[in-house]
């Protein structure tokens, strides 16, 4: 194996190229005439690589050695004077004996079956039924090839519902269709129903990247809103087209509230036990917070951007007693009142 092979460059080895061709021919056979760029996207290769693969195919065929024995590829349609013509249509003929894809290798069969089992274990009832059907088909095909993977990925390894929901919501955004959401508002511990114009699904900021958010115009709030996917109870894609002008979703890399205007900066003092929030929420670390002279266990002062005071109160309760409000005083009083009220339950 060459260095390039190990580096995973898709263009590297002859073996990998043959593997791609054994998928390409059946793909073309099943889909009829496809544009070069479409086929490249579907098969996850570059149009340039796909053209190089087709040129190899052009040199192959039945062992007779006569022109009629060779696979025919219309290369003229795919190549202009200045290189690849991405919008050219791929036409391949005389390759019917390669029309069916190669059987799954034992590793491929096991890898996909175990991935589906992980999805099954992490799914809700309705999704689980779908995964079971897909699994049964693949397990049957694998068993014919003598493969029975004895691997159990456990209960918490995948989140099928969130992934499928992301796919559905992004599809609605792409199609410009409204969505009705049942949403759990964590800041208020409350269920809500609303209709939104979806703009796109985006990953959360920083350490919270694994949480996905739907960015949408909310018709109840009459403002753009972010919805965490794991708090969406149900989502129904409606037939009604969106009512607001389409906009690309916000980039949350800089924090969730970066573009909001009605927010209050709140200064907090954090003990070491509460410092994890720095990685999870958009905060600014004040003064000598990262100074080497400051003892590791000294409190850290940060400014956190707060859109909803109830959210901050819940966060402070969760962190109690390791986080204190320095300013504004009104926020400190709200927290104190909440802590006293909670404590009074135990009186």
């Amino acid at each position, binding site marked *: 194996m060459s260095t390039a092979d190990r580096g995973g460059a898709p263009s590297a080895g002859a073996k990998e190229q043959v593997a791609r061709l054994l998928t390409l021919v059946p793909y073309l056979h099943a889909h009829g005439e496809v544009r070069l760029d479409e086929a490249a996207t579907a098969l996850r290769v570059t149009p340039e690589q796909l053209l190089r693969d087709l040129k190899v195919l052009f040199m192959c065929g039945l*062992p007779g050695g006569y022109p009629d024995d060779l696979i025919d590829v219309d290369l003229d349609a795919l190549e202009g004077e200045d290189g690849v013509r991405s919008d050219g249509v791929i036409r391949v003929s005389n390759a019917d004996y390669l029309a069916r894809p190669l059987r799954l290798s034992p590793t491929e069969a096991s890898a996909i079956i175990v991935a589906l089992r992980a999805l099954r274990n992490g799914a809700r009832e309705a999704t689980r039924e779908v995964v079971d059907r897909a699994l049964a*088909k693949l397990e049957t095909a694998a068993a014919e090839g003598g493969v029975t993977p004895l691997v159990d990925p456990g209960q918490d390894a995948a989140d099928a519902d969130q992934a499928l929901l992301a796919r559905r919501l992004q599809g609605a955004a792409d199609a410009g269709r409204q969505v009705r959401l049942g949403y759990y508002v964590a800041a208020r511990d409350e269920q809500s129903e609303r209709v939104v114009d979806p703009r796109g699904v985006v990953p959360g900021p920083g350490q919270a990247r694994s949480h996905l958010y739907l960015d949408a115009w909310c018709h109840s709030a009459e403002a753009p809103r972010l919805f965490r996917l794991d708090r969406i109870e149900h989502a129904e894609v409606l037939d009604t087209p969106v009512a607001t002008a389409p906009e690309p979703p916000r980039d949350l890399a800089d924090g969730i509230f970066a573009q909001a205007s009605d927010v209050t900066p709140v200064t907090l003092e954090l003990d070491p036990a509460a410092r994890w929030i720095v990685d999870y929420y958009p905060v600014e670390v004040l003064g000598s917070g990262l100074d080497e002279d400051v003892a590791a266990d000294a409190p850290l002062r940060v400014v956190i951007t707060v859109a909803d005071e109830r959210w901050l109160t819940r966060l402070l309760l969760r962190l109690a007693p390791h986080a204190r409000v320095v300013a504004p005083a009104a926020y400190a009083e709200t927290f104190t009142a909440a802590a006293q009220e909670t404590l009074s339950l135990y009186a």
Partner: protein
Amino acid sequence: MMGRMAAGKSERLLNLLIMLLVQRHYVSKAKIREILYPDSGFEAFEKMFERDKEELRSLGVPIEVGTLDPLFDDEPGYRISPDDFALPDITLTPDEAAVIGVATKVWQHARLAEATTEAVRKLAAQGHDLDLGALDIVEPRLSADEPSFDVFWEATQERQAVVFDYLKPGDEEPTTRHLQPWGVARYAGRWYVVGLDTDRRAERIFRLSRVQGRARKSGRGGAYEVPPGTDVSEVARRLAPQPSTTRVELLVRRGAGHTLRVGADRVEEGVPGPDTATAWDRLVLERGSLGLADEVLGYGADVLVVSPPALRERVVGRLRAALDDRRTVTS
């Protein structure tokens, strides 16, 4: 860039595959050499042909070896049976295709992620609408960082014994173990291998993160049978140490504590509560103790811990400490 040599080799491999696939009968080595390796001397041909066959086989191409004519000729011939070569037709409904698309995002393990994607590519080549690019925002979650994972995964498939050094909890030195692996299971966030310990002649389970150094496959493949009906997850649940959980009883204000309700084993509605401002429900749940006090505190005056006493004391203690703190900050 694809060099001339590499392109030449791709052509040769594919032409060899086609030649063996379209013939009804075994093709002799001499004929293969004449057509596909015309410029090679005998030894060079032997070497190249061996390598080419192995490369095709490693892609999963089933090359059969047989005798051309049992009466006269003992020279082997080769062929590929189209039925063994091709993926059987798998019909998928659109919702099944959607979950299979999601499956490509599950593995956080380079080799298995690539294998899953390759499997989905083959299914897509049957004409299914499987959009591999649509889910790039979803993060993979099934990781297998233990260095020995790949060895046990392969050994399980090949039914091949494995030798490894294992550090038992409480031991200072690892011991060498011999195992016929039956399967691999993830339980409570950890990977285990289950199998027959041939030194102890008994069913055993090993946590992969406790395997020291390199695990090595030993002996031939197919050396043993997995006992019929073996359920690796059942064995893992039975033999792995139990994660510690606590039975928790909470009083929760009507309409609040949504995420607690979702995970509750039992909900009893309309029970007497600490105040009469709203109705109260009793929730019973089984939970790991990690982070539980944080979660309960986050609900403020909507949730009251009834038991266990340790959790109740921790919640009360933290609230008192927070209120004392306030006095020092404001004074």
